[in-house]
């Protein structure tokens, strides 16, 4: 091995596990590392080992939510992943509701599904754009980010905020759909479906890109299960698991079928995302068709609001009851799981009867998938590292919490 790489690089070689290798610090100051560091050990062009060094954007979310109070922790937890803020907070709000013994109104359940899927589409587009620029395909990058704007606008239309909209609140949602939303959505959906075919032409079926993705970073189903991988990365390896299959909120009534691919390579992971965008559009269509009439807040919360404010809620804008400011929940322990854009997010929330949570444990999908940056990269080439990174749609702030 030493003879093979000597010469030009010899002066830079170090040792690891008895092998003479080149240690390369990819990140945290690197064009393609994100907010993290990958310590890559190279034998020639082949990756021998990768140390995934996460935690550079750790913001103590779990600890902070222990002092923030129950409701005020929602906008905080949203910051874990602002491109997917609805799915990220849904699990936490569901935990509060379970502790309160609160059931959201039927309409709110459907509105939550709609917002979650809107967020998922924009989150997947974000991931595809990043994956594009990881292969230096600037057109995919620009297209995905440009088209994401359509979905961000739709979210903005409903919630009044582009990214951190804190749409989901205990008992329901913050706002009702604006007038004519269905038409705007249809227009956006038709546009996006057309664009997805164009993405395929310019990116996914592009010979150079297929060369980069096919049979690169193959994740066999057994390994995926063993490592506890979640989300599109798991489904691309042929394992049909999606937390939405549990049927939380309105998913049970909408009949969700996960997108599954067998190959398990980087290309399959990208295709799963494309097909999930299509599936999400179908889900929103179905949800809009079946959207029940009624209030956007649960009856229990509605009755806690002063009568003078109730007319505002009837117009479709939520008001919080005063008790939410210092909400005390009955003691208890709740675990919720929700499918976020990058996979299943698990909340373990403990209440001890005080105005703040005793413990909020979050296991984010990016954190669970981070190990793949090591496992899939070993044995591949240095150039495959960004391809694998992009195909995993890893989001460091979400992993670091």
């Amino acid at each position, binding site marked *: 091995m030493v003879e093979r790489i000597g010469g030009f690089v010899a002066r830079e070689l170090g040792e690891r596990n008895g092998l003479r290798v080149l240690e390369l610090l990819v990140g945290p100051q*690197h064009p393609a590392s994100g907010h993290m560091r990958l310590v890559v050990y190279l034998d020639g062009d082949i990756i021998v080992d990768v140390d995934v060094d996460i935690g550079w954007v750790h913001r103590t979310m779990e600890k902070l939510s222990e002092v923030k109070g129950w409701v005020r922790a929602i906008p905080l937890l949203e910051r874990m992943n602002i491109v997917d803020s609805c799915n990220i907070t849904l699990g936490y709000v569901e935990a509060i509701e379970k502790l309160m013994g609160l059931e959201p109104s039927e309409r709110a359940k459907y509105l939550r599904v709609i917002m979650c899927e809107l967020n998922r589409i924009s989150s997947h587009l974000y991931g595809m754009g990043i994956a594009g620029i990881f292969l230096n395909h600037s057109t995919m990058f620009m297209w995905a980010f440009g088209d994401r704007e359509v979905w961000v606008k739709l979210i903005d239309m409903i919630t009044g905020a582009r990214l951190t909209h804190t749409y989901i609140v205990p008992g329901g949602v913050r706002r009702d759909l604006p007038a004519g939303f269905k038409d705007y959505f249809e227009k956006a959906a038709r546009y996006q479906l057309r664009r997805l075919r164009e993405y395929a032409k310019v990116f996914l079926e592009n010979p150079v890109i297929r060369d980069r993705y096919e049979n690169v970073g193959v994740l066999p189903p057994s390994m995926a299960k063993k490592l506890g991988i979640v989300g599109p990365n798991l489904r691309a390896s042929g394992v049909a698991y999606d937390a939405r299959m549990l049927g939380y909120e309105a998913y049970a009534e909408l009949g969700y079928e996960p997108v599954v691919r067998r190959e398990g390579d980087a290309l399959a992971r990208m295709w799963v995302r494309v097909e999930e965008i299509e599936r999400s559009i179908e889900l929103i269509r179905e949800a809009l068709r079946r959207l029940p009439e009624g209030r956007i807040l649960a009856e229990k919360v509605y009755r806690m609001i002063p009568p003078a404010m109730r007319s505002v809620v009837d117009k479709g804008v939520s008001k919080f009851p005063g008790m939410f400011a210092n909400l005390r929940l009955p003691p208890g322990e709740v675990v919720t799981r929700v499918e976020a854009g990058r996979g299943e997010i698990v909340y373990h929330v403990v209440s001890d009867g005080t105005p703040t949570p005793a413990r909020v444990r979050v296991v984010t999908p990016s954190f669970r998938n981070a190990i793949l940056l090591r496992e899939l990269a070993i044995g591949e080439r*240095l150039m495959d590292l960004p391809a694998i990174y992009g195909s995993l749609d890893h989001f460091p702030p979400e992993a670091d919490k």
Partner: protein
Amino acid sequence: MLEQLKPILEDLTAAVILPGAGAALVAALLVIYLERKLTARIQMRVGPLYVSKRLAGLLQPLADGIRFFFQEPIIPEGVDRAAFITSPALAVAVLLAAFAAIPGGPGVAPLQSPVSLLIVLAAVAISPIPVIIMGWASNNRFSLLGALREAILNTSYEPVLLLSALAGAATLGTLDLTKAVEIQAHLGIPGIILNPLAAVIFFAASLATCDRIPFDLVLGEQEIVAGPYTEYSGILFGVAMAIDYLKLYILGLVFSILFLGGWLPATTWPWTALVLFAKALIFMTAAVILRAVYGRARLDKALRTLWHFYFPLAIISLIWSQVVTYIISLAA
């Protein structure tokens, strides 16, 4: 007296201004602008606009270039100072030498040689060596890996480039660039029709030579930051970035002369130089616009493509050139 000086002045102007060094700078600025503006168009963006709004942002690359002059060039500790500072200039100097042999019109070149094509290609072939020195002198692993890529890639694209250029020249039966145009004028057919295969391969090999997408491996930003140029800043970085565009311009001129009929239909200097310049600009634009369509090929697969696909094709194009010359000699 003035009559005697005129040819010398023409030769010098050809090398220094048009289509030589000065035009190379203009071509680089224009092509960077076109590259950014056209890809922006494809990607639903506006592209450069705010510098010289009336010219649709035309002066943006110039502004960037001027900025490089006023930026502090940081020379990190631990670099081989002499090699670090001189190697970008060395690469540019070697490439500029090629303009001595590139004719700007019929017989307008400081260096008249029956093998001027080889002189130009030799200059292009030497230019990776300073780049490798850059990577070595930088004392940075990313630079080192970039230099390695340059070295590996160079051994792969160079034979393809040489063979396809030779195939183009063999079709015309000369290694003299001036003569190549004369022969095309005589035949009335541009080289690209006589030997389209060689032209296509030459184009592909130039992409690899000039580090353009999909063969932009040396500057592989997502893996090795900026390759050999990682530690460069200020005007040193500007000069380093100019190397690729300079190479592209030179290869564009060679391509125009061998395959596009050189300065035809113009026959008198300086119009010949202008036509040549325009043709090289088209070649460069075609080379840079591919960035909107392709991503970066993987190193090993790029090498395999060059050796297993383009290299045999280049040999076929050489055989083709012999067949074509035989047919032409029969017709004559």
